[in-house]
């Protein structure tokens, strides 16, 4: 276990002060050039040393004919070269005193045959010089808090809180726009692992577990190499930071000739279910779900239990949420008499004050963002809320215009009202320390949706997705309690002995 972040071999890779870059040129279509261009355009603040045998400059940076010519041993070597010269390049980096690398080049274990020998050679060189590296056959690294985007697509959005390790090549970089455009979120740090010749998933869990900018860890897993170590590390990390994994059950390691029932039932999918649960890792059933879970877990306080109140002003989405809650292991408690009395003045006679609390319309539309959820959060029979958001800026504008305000005042006040309502929901979550998950069929074009999301209320695109994310938070709470309880008991045993 790493004691401090800077001890991890991934620290210089995610936080380099200088990079020796191999494989960029002035040919704009090459992968290397494209990655170096991402690094530059994302505003990397460290030193960049492109190494190129002929060019004097690469993308307007001074280029060096060989790595020995650069003025310092860079924190990291980034290698995007033809397969055959990767090994000699890594050795030259070793000679220069470089101790960390990202190897993007492919043509190693993943192609079999000679590739396997080439990968063994890389490892041998790395061991000789004490170099730690990610890849080969990976796509790079991103650290939004250090303005580092060493991948081939442009980074989008503000610095984020999702730490990610991926065994799928370019998956990380493809998710930049997805996270930003749906949720206004991004990665804190992301590692693409490729063949995991050296640094693997377990190293990433350790690093991201210690990383202060990372609130939740996402794992895209195709196969686990250090099984026991993964369980041990993940149990340690998931005590204080949630881990969500999406596992693609490709590897049929369990499908050996088995004489027993147990052997034939131990397919990788069921086995990984157990491994994840034992490790405190939440398993997601899809990529979409993995990020929904990360988004909710990284944004909200944890629920103490599985009892949820649904607030809606439309029957369908409320019923859909109720139905999905049942399937996600959540309970919908009945409201107490006290709550019913408190809420009565704010709801129309047509409303059904049950759970879901379906308000149809509210006497004062803004009660939906403060008074009503406040009363529902005070309800002791509940551990959190799901709220359906359908309000639009236009409704506010129409109301203000109706009140006879001049056009420019309407504009100003609309923005202010939207803003204060979103802030109000966020403050409620903060005050009551109960999770509020929103859901809406509208996107970030709607200022309420964007406003809520930007103030830390997760808003998911459907009732089912919100309910499943709430279910994931409940599961995490339970897994965490289980691990903590287990530690307490084993500590008890030691002191008793």
């Amino acid at each position, binding site marked *: 276990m790493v004691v401090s972040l800077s001890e991890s071999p991934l620290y210089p890779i995610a936080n380099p002060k200088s990079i020796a870059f191999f494989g960029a040129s002035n040919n704009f279509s090459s992968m290397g050039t494209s990655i170096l261009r991402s690094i530059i355009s994302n505003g990397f603040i460290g030193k960049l040393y492109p190494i190129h045998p002929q060019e004097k400059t690469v993308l307007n940076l001074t280029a060096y004919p060989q790595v020995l010519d650069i003025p310092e041993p860079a924190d990291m070597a980034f290698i995007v070269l033809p397969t055959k010269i990767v090994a000699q390049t890594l050795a030259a980096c070793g000679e220069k005193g470089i101790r960390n690398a990202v190897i993007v080049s492919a043509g190693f274990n993943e192609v079999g045959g000679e590739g396997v020998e080439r990968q063994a050679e890389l490892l041998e060189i790395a061991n000789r010089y004490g170099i730690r590296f990610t890849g080969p056959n990976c796509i790079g690294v991103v650290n939004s808090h250090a303005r580092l985007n060493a991948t081939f697509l442009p980074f989008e959005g503000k610095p984020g809180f999702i730490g990610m390790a991926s065994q799928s090549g370019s998956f990380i970089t493809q998710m930049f726009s997805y996270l930003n455009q749906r949720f206004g979120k991004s990665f804190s740090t992301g590692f693409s692992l490729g063949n995991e010749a050296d640094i693997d998933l377990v190293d990433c869990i350790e690093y991201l577990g210690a990383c202060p900018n990372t609130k939740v860890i996402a794992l895209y897993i195709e*196969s*686990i*190499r250090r*099984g*026991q170590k993964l*369980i041990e590390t993940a149990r340690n990390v998931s005590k204080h930071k949630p881990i969500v994994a999406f596992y693609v059950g490709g590897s049929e*390691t*369990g499908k050996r000739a*088995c*004489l*027993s*029932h*147990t*052997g*034939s*039932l*131990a397919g990788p999918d*069921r*086995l990984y*279910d*157990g*491994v994840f*649960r*034992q490790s405190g890792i939440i398993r997601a059933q899809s990529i979409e779900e993995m990020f929904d879970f990360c988004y909710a877990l990284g944004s909200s306080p944890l629920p103490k239990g599985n009892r949820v109140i649904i607030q809606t002003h439309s029957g369908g989405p409320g019923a859909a949420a109720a139905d999905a809650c049942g399937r996600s292991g959540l309970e919908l408690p009945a409201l107490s008499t006290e709550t019913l009395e408190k809420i009565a003045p704010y709801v129309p006679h047509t409303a059904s004050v049950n759970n879901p609390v379906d308000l149809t319309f509210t006497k004062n539309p803004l009660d939906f963002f403060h008074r009503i959820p406040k009363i529902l959060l005070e309800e002791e029979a509940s551990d959190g809320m799901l709220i359906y958001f359908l309000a639009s800026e236009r409704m506010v504008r129409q109301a203000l215009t109706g009140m006879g305000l001049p056009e420019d005042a309407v504009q100003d006040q609309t923005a202010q009202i939207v803003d204060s309502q979103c802030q109000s929901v966020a403050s409620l979550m903060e005050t009551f320390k109960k999770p509020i998950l929103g859901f809406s069929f509208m996107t970030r074009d709607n200022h309420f949706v964007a406003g809520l999301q930007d103030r830390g209320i997760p808003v998911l695109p459907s009732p089912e997705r919100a309910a499943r994310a709430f279910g994931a938070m409940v599961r995490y709470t339970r897994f965490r309690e*289980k691990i903590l*309880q*287990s530690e307490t*008991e*084993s500590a008890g045993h030691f002191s008793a002995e």
Partner: protein
Amino acid sequence: MNPINTAIQNGQAALSEYQSKKYLGSFGIPVTREEIVQSSDEAIRVSATIGFPVALKACSPELMHKSETGCIELGLTTPEAVQSAYKRVIEKTSLPLEGVLVQEMLQGPREIVVGFTRDPQFGACVMLGYGGVMAEILKDTVFRIAPFDKIEAMDMIDELKSRAMLDTFRGQQPADLDTICRILMSMGQIGIQQPLIKEIDINPLMISPTGQVKAADALIILERK
């Protein structure tokens, strides 16, 4: 000598049911009362000691899935029934037998399966599931990697879809969950300590109407050299 090493030296791919249960029993796993007999007279005598009703099973390390070959006779209530069942059981197979197993009949109907297998990435894996002949159809199974503690074992139980069956169920008392947890942990320990064991099935692990658990059948598969 350790029964596992002996069996491997004899070229066995597995332990017989009798040997498997003796071995598991030595780790505190509750198993049926039973004895190996070589004649129908002996079978009748042992039945009386164990108490009727009894089960008779052909016993051989090569006979791994007995119910599929009909080498098993259940619920025998009289000496006459034991005598005729003995004949049928030994006629059903041409395999060389260790003998015929006379064992106490356990009451169900609740049955679970507990197992052990090895995975190349994770090592010793322990399984718990809904048991009996439907185990592979229903596939209500959960896994953990050994070693693990009682809290984790309890979490395995809670993860079962058929979890409710282990509480008060149709007039039957709750299953002895403490013992189930202990069995799950022992399975992992056996697997870690004994690398020559490849797989273990305890199927079914019967749960009596009073909640007691006992292995009605067991199979230990050995690593081939």
